[in-house]
């Protein structure tokens, strides 16, 4: 019996030649990632009580992204604590004000195919888009990882999700992942890996692949994986990474818990409706729903290709009166790229507000939370009650194109009417 990508990566991390789904193994982390809100501030007490010595500071990455810029004194205190902690520990990799941690660790080359990445955030699974086994853990579990470099894991079964065919014009990775989550259900992949494959996935850019892996946890999955190929290798080379580029792939005769097969050419734009990410409908079902705010950004969909498509839609147009359109690039690097390409100017002229890269309003922390009765159309990853502010607010999730089209009309809008035929 062959092995899945998950089995191969966890076997390597456990120092075994072979593991199978269901095995419980002790694994060594290649990267332990924390952010400000669920990192040093919460773990320092326990970490010190247990000796306070890092297993390997080269493998510990801290990113301040949730409290940036601080909206309250408490957030400023957490940020300062995190910064001081990273300095006191002598960490070579501490980032702040650079953007959401998941994007930052990808851009800085910490994520490589075959690595085991543990982070104190549920969307850590995004790193699976480069073929790393990456998953979210709690802060207490992180204390153990920081001290020993290890934790226990149950090797997950894998759901293989095959998307063949070509995505139609105006339809994106976001629509693929929303449709997949609708079918699997928000707890349908609990304790499992989702492995995305097929010709439609293979043709996706690095930017778009990360959308799929980012949202795997919204189906309850432990991680979301895509077989690393030349797209991943080229991306990493462009970031100055020259080593650790060996690829990992599932064997032909690997065993799967379930295999789902889709034809991408039949897909329409999708929207996740309040208050669950699997409450997904074709955009036609909710077209015309009035919104108060649109949010274009986040680690899910704030990358340069997302901003480009939004700019294509918004160029020369104005956003609807009485709504706000917040644009939050997924990193400083992307912010600068968008600036160089003139995208920020196009978006600003259309009436958008460009904020700094941060977890900000996506998690209901800073810079653009919503009030009772307000409705948001967002390109982010989660629409739980209270997620972006008031528990009396409503969050709809869609692709950056759908978000941009919605900004023009002030109500949920199919993006295809604003896109030139044939342009993706």
């Amino acid at each position, binding site marked *: 019996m062959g092995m899945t990508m998950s089995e191969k990566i966890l076997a390597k991390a456990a120092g075994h030649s072979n593991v199978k789904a269901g095995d*419980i193994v002790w694994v060594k982390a290649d990267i332990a990632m924390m952010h400000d809100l669920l990192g040093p501030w919460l773990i320092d007490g*326990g970490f010190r009580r247990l000796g306070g010595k890092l297993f390997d500071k080269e493998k510990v990455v801290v990113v301040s992204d949730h409290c940036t810029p601080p909206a309250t004194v408490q957030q400023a205190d957490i940020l300062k604590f995190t910064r001081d902690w990273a300095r006191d520990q002598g960490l070579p990799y501490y980032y702040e004000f650079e953007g959401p941690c998941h994007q930052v660790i990808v851009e800085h080359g910490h994520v490589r195919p075959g690595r085991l990445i543990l982070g104190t955030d549920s969307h850590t699974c995004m790193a699976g888009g480069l073929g790393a086994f990456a998953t979210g853990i*709690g802060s207490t579990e992180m204390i*153990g990882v920081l001290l020993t470099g290890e934790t226990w894991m149950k090797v997950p079964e894998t759901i293989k999700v095959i998307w063949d065919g070509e995505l139609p014009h105006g339809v994106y990775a976001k629509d693929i992942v929303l449709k997949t989550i609708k079918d699997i259900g928000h*707890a349908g992949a609990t304790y499992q890996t989702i492995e995305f494959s097929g010709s439609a996935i293979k043709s996706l850019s690095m930017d778009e692949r990360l959308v799929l892996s980012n949202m795997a946890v919204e189906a309850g999955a432990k991680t979301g994986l895509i077989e690393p190929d030349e797209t991943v290798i080229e991306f990493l080379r462009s970031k100055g990474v020259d080593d650790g580029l060996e690829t990992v792939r599932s064997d032909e005769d690997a065993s799967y818990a379930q295999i789902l097969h889709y034809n991408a050419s039949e897909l329409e734009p999708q929207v996740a409706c309040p208050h669950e990410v699997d409450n997904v409908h074709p955009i036609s079902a909710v077209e015309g729903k009035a919104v108060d705010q649109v949010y274009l950004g986040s680690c899910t969909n704030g990358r340069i290709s997302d901003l480009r498509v939004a700019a294509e839609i918004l160029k020369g147009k104005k956003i609807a009166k009485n709504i706000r359109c917040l644009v939050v690039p997924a990193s400083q690097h992307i912010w600068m790229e968008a600036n160089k390409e003139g995208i920020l100017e196009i978006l600003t002229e259309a009436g958008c507000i460009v904020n700094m890269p941060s977890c900000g309003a996506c998690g209901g922390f800073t810079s653009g939370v919503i009030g009772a009765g307000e409705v948001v159309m967002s390109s982010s990853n989660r629409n*739980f009650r209270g997620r972006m502010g008031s*528990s009396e607010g409503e969050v709809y999730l869609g692709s950056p194109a759908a978000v941009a089209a919605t900004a023009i009309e002030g109500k949920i809008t199919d993006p295809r009417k604003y896109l030139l035929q044939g342009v993706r």
Partner: protein
Amino acid sequence: MSYKIRGRVWKYGDNINTDIISPGQYMSQPVEKQAEHAMEAIDPEFSKKVRPGDILVAGHNFGSGSSRETAQMVLKHHEIGAIIANSFARIFYRNSINVGLPVVDMKDTSVILEGDEMEVDLLEGKIINHTQGTEYQGTKLPEHLIEMVQLGGLEPYLAKKLKFS
């Protein structure tokens, strides 16, 4: 953590996610402040009505969403005795074991009613309903976690392993 727990039941539905248990907008505040807002999106009276030892009973997928351990912190602040659900989200389940918040899953929690007096044996997965005079079998704790639970969570477990206790 005690692994035999007795308390009265508060009932909830499916998909009680971490944004409900621990809303993001209060996460940077001290835990006692955060705890005032626990569950308020679906039960505004929660923080006023729960008493130490109370047991939360819910449907499927309890604790879905974030890896935030503030969810466990606020429930522990209210001294919730245990959570019984049809199923738990993966990270929430791990975090609960790690911090010593008793969690047990059983097939059908719909038979349990609000206000029932329950007793849970975490190690055996045995659940006794004293009000109804019935007994249910929940999932037994995986063997590799028994020692961790007996010691009270991951920190005491690590203390023993690393010889700090």
